[in-house]
């Protein structure tokens, strides 16, 4: 029998802000169903939104011929979200620190920082072409799921 706390759903979407909004909403619902409290679910949704924005804006550059994929997997231990684009690739080690004094007043560059702040694990994988981000939020015994 399938574990009722395990589920997985995937989407392939165009490179648009509508897709970003859909992924964000799905993330919030997935986090709520996984048993996370309201604040945590909101933080997860924001992290996933930032990853989707990066995929659409910086990865695919709104190219209508390119798509993004998003998958949401709930296991007994974690909520795992994967967002992938078809862009030129991203080296996270080269990103400037948005908290550095010389960067604090920059108008951009906080997306990956917020993703790392709100998720327990963030992994980058280079595709050919593209980048896949895996975002993981661990559940606790107090979050049994539905």
């Amino acid at each position, binding site marked *: 029998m399938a574990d009722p706390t395990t589920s997985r759903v995937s989407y392939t979407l165009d490179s648009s802000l509508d897709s970003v909004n859909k992924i964000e909403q799905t993330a919030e619902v997935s986090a709520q169903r996984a048993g996370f409290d309201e604040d945590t679910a909101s933080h997860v949704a924001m992290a996933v939104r930032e990853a989707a924005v990066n995929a659409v804006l910086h990865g695919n550059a709104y190219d209508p011929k390119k798509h993004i994929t998003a998958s949401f997997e709930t296991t007994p231990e974690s909520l795992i979200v994967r967002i992938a684009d078809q862009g030129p690739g991203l080296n996270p080690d080269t990103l400037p620190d948005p*908290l550095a004094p010389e960067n604090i*007043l920059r108008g951009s560059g906080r997306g990956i920082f917020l993703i790392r702040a709100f998720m327990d694990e963030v992994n980058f994988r280079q595709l050919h072409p593209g980048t896949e981000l895996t975002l993981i939020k661990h559940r606790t015994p107090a979050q049994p799921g539905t």
Partner: protein
Amino acid sequence: MSMKVQTRLVDGVTILDLSGRITLGEGSVTIRDAVRDVLAKGSKKILLNLAEITYIDSSGIGELVSAFTTVKNAGGELKLLNLTKKVHDLLQITKLYTVFDVKDDEASAISSFSK
């Protein structure tokens, strides 16, 4: 929900009452245009009332920072009023809480602008 801006003038301070979401796209453009419009009309004391802002993403944070620096570079002052917990937490995490002059009370916020 799209972002809305209502403008009022109180004791020489232009208050922008913002509502909705400040996110990549419409929300960010709306706030950018609103601040530029206020500056173009000659007002350099701007108070952003964020009481009805339900959500802000990293683009929205960037837009607040850009508004702050634009007004400052024009010789003016931009302050924030009535942060929700979500926005407050975001500004804390990004260390911008100490950059912005953040107020909780409109009357004292208005009186805090230079005369």
